[in-house]
């Protein structure tokens, strides 16, 4: 994962709540075994007509939005399925951050592992950003170190899990960090009761 420190870029507003991960990347694109190549399928069903042509009225297809880096959207973003393909698709389309009043738990976690910055702001700040974002050239800046979002006439602090912050700022491999605690994992393991199940087949 590449480190994430600060992002400045234009916004794309998607002013609807409860956007589930099935909308972000529909199930027909989850059959691949690779981690990349999902960007073109982002919001596929909303972005395409029944015959597969781009829907001209969906904002993702507006050429003026092609360079957008920050998705500004309604509450409970990323609810539903745990598919990590959702943050992959957003990132691979070109988004570096999502600003919402609230993100769903699994989506927020997944994003923190892949370097997609999910920023939760009060709804009135999100609404002001969505208004600003009607201008496709309007920019927003997100500074992870100071946990601040700034845009024209707006400066907002946001909360962020300290460990996820550290991971994003350093881009460190989470597994390597955890493996550094092998002694603690092993001692927990040794203390586990012997009746706990294993998945090993026992012939009766």
């Amino acid at each position, binding site marked *: 994962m590449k480190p994430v420190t600060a992002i400045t870029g234009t916004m794309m507003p998607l002013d609807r709540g409860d956007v589930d991960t*099935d909308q972000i990347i529909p199930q027909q694109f989850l059959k691949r075994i690779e981690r990349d190549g999902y960007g073109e399928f982002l919001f596929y*069903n909303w972005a395409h007509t029944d015959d597969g042509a781009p829907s001209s009225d969906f904002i993702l297809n507006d050429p003026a939005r092609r360079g957008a880096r920050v998705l500004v959207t309604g509450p409970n973003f990323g609810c539903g399925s745990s598919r990590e393909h959702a943050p992959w698709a957003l990132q691979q389309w070109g988004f570096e951050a999502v600003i919402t009043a609230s993100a769903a738990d*699994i989506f927020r*976690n997944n994003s923190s592992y892949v370097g997609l910055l999910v920023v939760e702001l009060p709804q009135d700040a999100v609404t002001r950003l969505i208004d600003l974002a009607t201008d496709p050239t309007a920019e927003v800046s997100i500074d992870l170190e100071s946990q601040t979002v700034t845009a024209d006439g707006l400066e907002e602090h946001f909360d962020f*899990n300290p460990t996820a912050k550290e991971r994003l700022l350093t881009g460190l491999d989470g*597994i390597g960090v955890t493996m550094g605690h092998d002694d*603690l994992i092993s001692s927990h393991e040794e203390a*586990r009761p012997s009746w706990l199940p294993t*998945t090993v087949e026992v012939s009766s």
Partner: protein
Amino acid sequence: MTAPRTLFQKVWDNHIVIDSDPTLLYVDLHLVHEVTSPQAFAGLNQSGRTVRRPDLTVATVDHGIPTTGRSLGIRDPLSKKQIDALVQNCKDHDITMFGLDDPRQGIVHVVGPEQGLTQPGLVVVCGDSHTSTHGAFGALAFGIGTTEVEHVLATQTIWQAKPRSMAVEVEGELPWGVAAKDLILGIIAQIGVSGGTRHVIEYRGQAIHDLSMEQRMTICNMSIEGGARAGMIAPDETTIRYIEGRPFAPKGARWDEAVSAWESLVTDPDAVFDKVAVVDASRLVPHVSWGVNPAQTVPVTGAVPSPDAYDDPQQRDAAVRALEYMALRPGTPIFDIAVDHVFLGSCTNGRIEDLRAAARVVDGRKVDSHVSAVVVPGSMQVKAQAESEGLHEVFEAAGFSWRDAGCSSCLAMNPDVIPAGERCASTSNRNYEGRQGRGARTHLVSPAMAAAAAIAGHFVDVREWEGS
């Protein structure tokens, strides 16, 4: 003296490896399926790591597999590649797998409990949001992403920000003819699709205690549809009776030790929850979803609501979009909505009791000539059990198609796709746009309600049928 703790807190405390925020938790059981694991195994292989505890890991295939003609192989080349990858990964890393030809194959959340692997007090994870199902046993079970799957494979642990606790107190008795599915849809309608976000729900009260394990699984399964990190129900006699004798359940002296440990897994009398919702079960009726999220439901005796019924502008806009997608007009009685398809199955309602409930309604009747109806048992074990009871004959005589086990039309990753513009009464968990196929229109219902809709060709109040 220790402070009173919730069930969730007790299970959490038992698994702390590093007590920080977030906490490093030990994972007792890691369930794996073909869709969310290939990139995790690839990452593991690329960095030259191994699976720390293959003996705490188990895999099956469920999402992408066909439910008919399996002897002919998997025709979809992408699904085949994905399934082949899982077979190879399990072989390479010595992981037990219930593959396509195994009589134990099925939906991962049906297989874990029925094999006796899901037990009280465990931390269970899986790259699937409906992992919450296993909370029905008093386990702390939650869905994770693919990066986390790789992390668990390598370390058998997971970092988790500690969720808050939420009690859903279900008061009163569930009326006759009202299913567990109606109860959880009623709970979600009350708390909303994000009412449980950042929380672990414990379902409590006499109505919960009275439920069978299958019914409890239906409840906990849809916790994620209320936004919750997990759902839990304290283990009791019902739980213990269900587990005893299952293939991976403890035996002999270990069984006695396990049972005595499980008995402490209850919320202490004075423990305080961060949030409480109270639901009156006695007022519940069969529910039908009309919209595109699982909170957009109404009683079957009701009508499609008007967007004007919502005060919140965002909810109103959502209702307008939902009605357009669902091609429904406000005020339309639910009884007047005709269905083209009926899907009985999924990790929500694909268990033996669900099939029995549906079969009771179907018995001696015929599926409406305009309806295509299928039963997809949640596992091959459920299928075998149903066949031993003759349920397949009831369904087939009525005109249902009787299939092999898998996720099937719940998310339409296999060939069981609902065509665009067609309407499906479904016992699954999500009525999202495109969930059962692009343009498909899903109505979530209980198994008995789905069965009745298949016969009538439109929604009916199954309580009137079962009473006759």
